[in-house]
């Protein structure tokens, strides 16, 4: 199966499901990068370029949604979730409006652009907003399912998408996959430990699970595509069944997936856990694969974290 970036799957899904009058797409001079350009070509009258003005774009999206529209607003994650954070909060989340903030170029796999464009804090900011739901699909097929679901679900969403082309986890792009907002998908079964991953770290974790198997460790792997509302039952069950959890995210270890899992564990069934992610440092320029190595977001790093955590059980 060929690789596809989640941003590309997003652009295609907008075209596939967006043939309805209420769907409107906004971009901030990045439509060829966010891939909303596909929608722009298919439905030019419902695609609006708002220029390099992300704060305005988010508030405009809010105003549009009050006219019975389902509005998708796209730019890079750093600009959506941080430059325009307060607009997302006050214009979109506070009035609980039907706007889907679909942000591409999240994480360090943005690559060569470097730290200024590598957003590793967006899960933290978006997760903290009341009314906001936060989803990060790991591959093309799940992105398609996510876009279809958020299009049909009223209210604000933040969808975290990536630039890097990634392997499929769920099979062919056009296939229907099991996807439910707020319900983690079990990618691998196992009872020695649970790896909870999101985004392209699911693929890294699959490789880690295979390496662990060779070492006689059976790891469960959950694709926690919905960071908020997070799947409390799946986390609680993982704690009870496996007694140890490693979270893996292409995000700062503060405020993202690891924090969300720790919050659940500490209030339900605590177990030993470890967070794999960006260790409170900024990224840098380079090839995405090289950056994953430098910042220890590799299958090898996940294996090491698992072994360290199991040893503490």
């Amino acid at each position, binding site marked *: 199966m060929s690789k596809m970036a989640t941003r590309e799957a997003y652009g295609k899904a907008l075209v596939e499901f967006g043939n309805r009058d209420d769907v*409107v797409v906004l971009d901030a001079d990045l439509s060829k990068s966010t891939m909303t350009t596909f929608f722009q070509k298919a439905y030019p009258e419902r695609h609006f370029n708002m220029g390099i003005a992300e704060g305005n774009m988010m508030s405009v999206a809010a*105003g549009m949604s*009050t006219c019975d529209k389902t509005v998708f607003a796209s730019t890079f994650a750093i600009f959506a979730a941080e430059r325009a954070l307060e607009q997302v909060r*006050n214009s979109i989340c506070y*009035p609980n409006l039907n706007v889907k903030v679909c942000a591409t170029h999240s994480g360090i796999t943005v690559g060569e652009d470097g730290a200024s464009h590598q957003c590793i804090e967006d899960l933290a900011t978006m997760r903290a907003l009341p009314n906001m739901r936060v989803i990060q699909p790991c591959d093309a097929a799940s992105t398609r399912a996510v876009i279809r679901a958020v299009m049909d679900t009223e209210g604000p969403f933040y969808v975290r998408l990536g630039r890097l082309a990634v392997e499929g986890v769920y099979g062919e792009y056009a296939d229907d996959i099991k996807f439910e907002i707020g319900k983690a998908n079990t990618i691998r079964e196992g009872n020695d430990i649970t790896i909870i991953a999101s985004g392209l770290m699911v693929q890294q974790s699959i490789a880690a699970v295979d390496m662990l198997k060779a070492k006689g460790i059976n790891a469960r792997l959950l694709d926690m595509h919905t960071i908020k509302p997070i799947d409390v039952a799946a986390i609680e069950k993982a704690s009870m069944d496996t007694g140890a959890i490693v979270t893996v995210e292409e995000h700062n270890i503060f405020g993202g997936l690891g924090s969300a899992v720790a919050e659940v564990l500490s209030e339900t069934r605590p177990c030993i856990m470890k967070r794999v992610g960006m260790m409170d440092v900024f990224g840098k320029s380079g090839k995405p694969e090289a950056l994953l190595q430098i910042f220890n977001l590799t299958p090898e790093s996940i294996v090491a974290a698992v072994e360290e955590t199991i040893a503490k059980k």
Partner: protein
Amino acid sequence: MEKSTHLQLKLFAARMRKLIIEGVYSAQSGHPGGSLSSTEIFAYLYGSKMRVDPATPENPDRDRFVLSKGHCAPGLYAALSQRGFFDPCNIKDFRKCGSMLQGHPCRACIPGVDMSTGSLGQGISTAVGMAMMGKLDKKDYRVYSILGDGELQEGQVWEALMSAAHYKLDNLSAFIDFNGLQIDGKTDDVMSLGSIEAKVSAFGWHMIPVDGHDFEAIEAAVTEAENTKGKPTMVVAKTHKGKGVSFMEDQAGWHGKAPNQQEYEQAMAELDATLAELEVQA
């Protein structure tokens, strides 16, 4: 403007001013200064111009209003209650726990409020979004908004103005409540705005300067805006902060301060006298 309409609007404004003072006094907080300076604009829009109906506040064909200077909620609430969206007696609960009348406009809780605002600069952008959808859906509703002059210091306002001109939103008419004062003093001392008229025009808007307390001038400007095709219109309304209450007029200190009992009584006495004079004419 018909003489009777003019008198009705003056009555609408006089009653609004009493409600504004009532609300801010009851809450012992809130923003009287800018609410009083924009009273005639509110009164013209809600007392005469806008096609809105309290029976169907969500009618998709209605005209829209966004209070971009959201802190002037007392003005908006006074206008909405007089237009019949809710009972004016709610105003005494303004800013209190359990009241729908939040400190700043809340779309989800108050009938007739088209957008939650309060963070300056965002409201005008949401108005742009509404006007864009009016164009897309080929509806003939109009979108109105009031900005503060101090609010123009927010960069987002200029992003919004740029986008409204780009999309040729001639269904959007905004007002700048140009009272020259903000929390910390004169806008010219805090952060000079330069020529608002020149800036607005340079951003591609049709610009009309008016006396913001003169109903005939406001009506003429709004009519001119309706007849202006291919660009949005900004009515730059020269106003007096605190208008209608002698000791509040042109005083920055009354931006966000509630009157004490003595001040309240004096303010109400002045506003009652104005209202009584108008009622005699009616």
